[in-house]
């Protein structure tokens, strides 16, 4: 019991409890709608983890939301609400696409160049939002939402422009193959590659049937880097001080305006990197015309909140999120239950995480219930007279 109470007091407990509650609510909804909850969850798990290919796809899907999640969590820890992750992601994809189409260098140069373009795009947009907040006090949520839509239409503009439009399609031209970050892209399609892979069926399935790319590894490194930046450097210290108490930070000589801009630059850079990795890593390796927001940035918000805004926590959180989305498609195929059930589940999880202190309250409750009263103890006043015992 003590171990349980101790566990409930840890920050991670609220995430785990919320996830369990999410499954519980989804089970109730499924049962009420007349579907077998256990069967549905079975389909969900086998749809996400049942084959090597599925696992690879979950990892691929997790990559962009891991990075946007890290961006959101980073900003959140320094007191900013970067709802503009979506727009920063899009600008990252746009710049990566443009440069990727126009420049063709050897991969060792092309890939870093394209990734830098994505980072630059996100950082630039972040800087703009941070600048408006620092200099004119315009709330970042307002400017973020506006830039999200500006970026969406900028993307469509680029896609439809004469220079970049791919004929008879809704997408732009793909980037040059020298910029692909898909793992062993050329080798796996060569005769030697296919011959080798024929000997290892699972690897063949993963490499040939998915766009497995370096993105997730980059994402893990970035998440660790972001955590280190926040908790082990002078810059992170200053950013957090500004986030918690802007006045005290200013009083102690920290340049608050610079900190706000810098925080948005870094957060935006992570989101732009997400965009860049999606273009270089996943076919069609091009931006496409958008009718609505793709949700990579917004899903990043959910990932960050499920992770309790810990940047490293975004790693498991993004895998969970991607697993639910990808596995959720199987729920529809196998059970016939609408995959919207996954959205209910995610919504429930985020909802319960947003209730702060729920696990602490739970721990208090358990502690009270299991507190053993001492039968020998009689309350005594200071002068030694026994006091009437308090009713339990």
């Amino acid at each position, binding site marked *: 019991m003590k171990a349980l109470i101790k566990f409930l007091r840890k920050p991670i407990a609220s995430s785990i409890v919320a996830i369990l509650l999410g499954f519980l609510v989804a089970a109730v909804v499924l049962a009420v709608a007349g579907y077998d909850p256990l069967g549905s969850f079975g389909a969900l798990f086998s749809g996400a983890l049942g084959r090597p290919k599925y696992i690879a796809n979950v990892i691929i899907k997790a990559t962009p939301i891991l990075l946007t999640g890290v961006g959101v969590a980073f900003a959140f820890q320094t007191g900013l609400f970067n709802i503009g992750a979506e727009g920063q992601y899009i600008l990252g994809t746009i710049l990566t696409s443009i440069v990727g189409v126009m420049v063709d260098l050897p991969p060792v140069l092309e890939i870093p160049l394209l990734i830098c373009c994505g980072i630059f795009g996100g950082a630039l947009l972040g800087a703009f939002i941070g600048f408006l907040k620092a200099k004119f006090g315009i709330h970042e949520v307002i400017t973020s939402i506006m830039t999200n839509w500006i970026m969406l239409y900028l993307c469509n503009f680029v896609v439809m422009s004469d220079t970049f439009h791919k004929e008879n399609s809704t997408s732009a031209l793909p980037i040059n193959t020298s910029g692909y970050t898909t793992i062993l892209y050329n080798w796996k399609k060569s005769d030697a590659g296919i011959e080798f892979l024929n000997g290892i069926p699972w690897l063949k399935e993963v490499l040939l049937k998915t766009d497995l790319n370096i993105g997730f590894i980059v994402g893990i490194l970035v998440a660790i880097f972001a955590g280190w930046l926040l908790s*082990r*450097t*002078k*810059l*992170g*210290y*200053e950013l*957090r*001080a500004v986030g*918690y*108490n802007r*006045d*005290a*930070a*200013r*009083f*102690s*000589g*920290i*340049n608050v305006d610079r900190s706000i801009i810098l925080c948005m630059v870094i957060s935006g850079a992570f989101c732009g990197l997400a965009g860049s990795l999606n273009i270089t890593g996943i076919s069609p390796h091009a931006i496409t015309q958008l009718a609505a927001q793709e949700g990579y940035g917004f899903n990043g918000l959910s990932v960050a909140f499920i992770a309790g805004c810990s940047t490293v926590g975004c790693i498991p959180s993004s895998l969970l999120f991607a697993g639910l989305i990808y596995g959720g498609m199987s729920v529809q195929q196998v059970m016939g239950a609408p995959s919207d059930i996954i959205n209910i589940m995610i919504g429930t999880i985020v909802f319960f995480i947003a209730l702060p202190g729920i696990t602490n309250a739970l721990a208090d409750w358990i502690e009270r219930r299991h507190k053993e009263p001492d039968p020998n103890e009689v*309350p*005594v*006043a*200071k*002068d030694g*007279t026994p*006091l*009437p015992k*308090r009713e339990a």
Partner: protein
Amino acid sequence: MEVSSEYAVQMHGILKKFGVFTALDHVDLDVKKQTVHAILGENGAGKTTLMNILYGLYQADEGGIYLNGEEVKIATPTDAIKHGIGMVHQHFMLVENFTVTENIILGDEVCGAAGVLDMKKARQEVQALVEEYGFDVDPDAVIEDITVGMQQRVEILKALYRGAEILILDEPTAVLTPQEIEKLIEIMHDLIAKGKTIIIITHKLKEIMQSSDECSIIRRGVYMGTVNVKETNETDLASKMVGRNVNLTVEKTKAHPGEPVLSIQGLTVKDERGIDQVRDLNLEVRAGEIVGIAGIDGNGQQELVDAITNIVKAQAGTIKINGEEVQNTTPRNTYTHSVATIPSDRHRWGLVLPFAVSENTVLERHVDEEFGAGITLDYDKLKSYTTELIEKFDIRPSGCEDERMSGLSGGNQQKAIIARMVSAAPNLLIAFQPTRGLDVGAIEFVHKTLIAERDRGAAILLISFELDEVMDVSDTIAVIYHGQIVGTYEQGTVDENELGLLMAGGGAK
């Protein structure tokens, strides 16, 4: 003590733990009817916790509460109000842009048919209440337009309106001017005469002597006994509260001033509304002396400090530190000129409350190579450095390096700021209201530290709204009125009356 109906409130054997920390260890309180009962204790001793239990904000782990000899259960403030208990918090809970009447009836509205608010009747009721108790309050005035003293009276009216027989006042004088304090004590005695019982939480000894009948003392969560105020004196109360003999007078040797460190010429500073708050002010502080600025709040003290620390811009004039002009640069620049400032509002300007204590002690100095090479910050070094400060400045609880700053009591938070500022060994130390909200033990510590810094050779600028403090600690006393220094005196060459007259604008041309 027997449970008896002679007592308005009795709390027996109250135990309250927060985690492993025991805030109250079987504390007793017996308040006779129709008396003013003071609860005295250092910051963090548990006074407010005890009252929060009585008011239903916290639940005691053990112990019983008796009102008029009957045991009662108080689980929420609503229960407390039902039992006739009212509480006026240190920080007022008023809606700034509502009128006095609206604030008083808020949550207990007078409604006519179909739940329509009957403002006319409400106003009459409030007016009747104001007249009954002889309060000088206009029921139609908007809260933001009236003085702090009046706002406090509105809080008291709010409690009376809800039928309070027992009034709890939490640090009621912390925000009041001397005249307002006098008026409050008058009101308290008036309420007693009308049959009410008052519990007042405070650590100001002078006011206990003036206002209270009995005084219960709590030291670090332990009940130390109750004394009859008529049979005791301030020194006695102070040593009971702190647990050792406290020197209420400030001891220091004569100052030996050196070269000017801070010199201000013709300084003019506007506030955010564009009104001149500091007007053509001249001031000089030399090394090895304490210059105290006496004045009533709102006469330009805040703007003066903000201009020196470069939080706001100066419209005209120069501020020189050791001969170099620093006005209209950055806060960092003031700091690098070896100026350390103890701010008046420690929560707003002084501390990052969610940060650990060890993170707070290096604000300003975190950029130094000493605390991490290059861009890294060495948290082990932070911790060992903080351990030193905790020992040297007796910050409690010891071993609080990794605790959040918000978990420390007010006095210890202030000690942490002073430790941080003094350890920078500044040439100029600005102390703005350095003892605000502190108890006598902590005040003694602050004053000793200021004098020790002076003797080290630092120039000290002390700005305080407490005239006694300025007169006791300063070597030179300057009076600020309407943004100007209207008089400068050597310590001992001027009395309270003369300074009081100047502070109120009496001597100004």
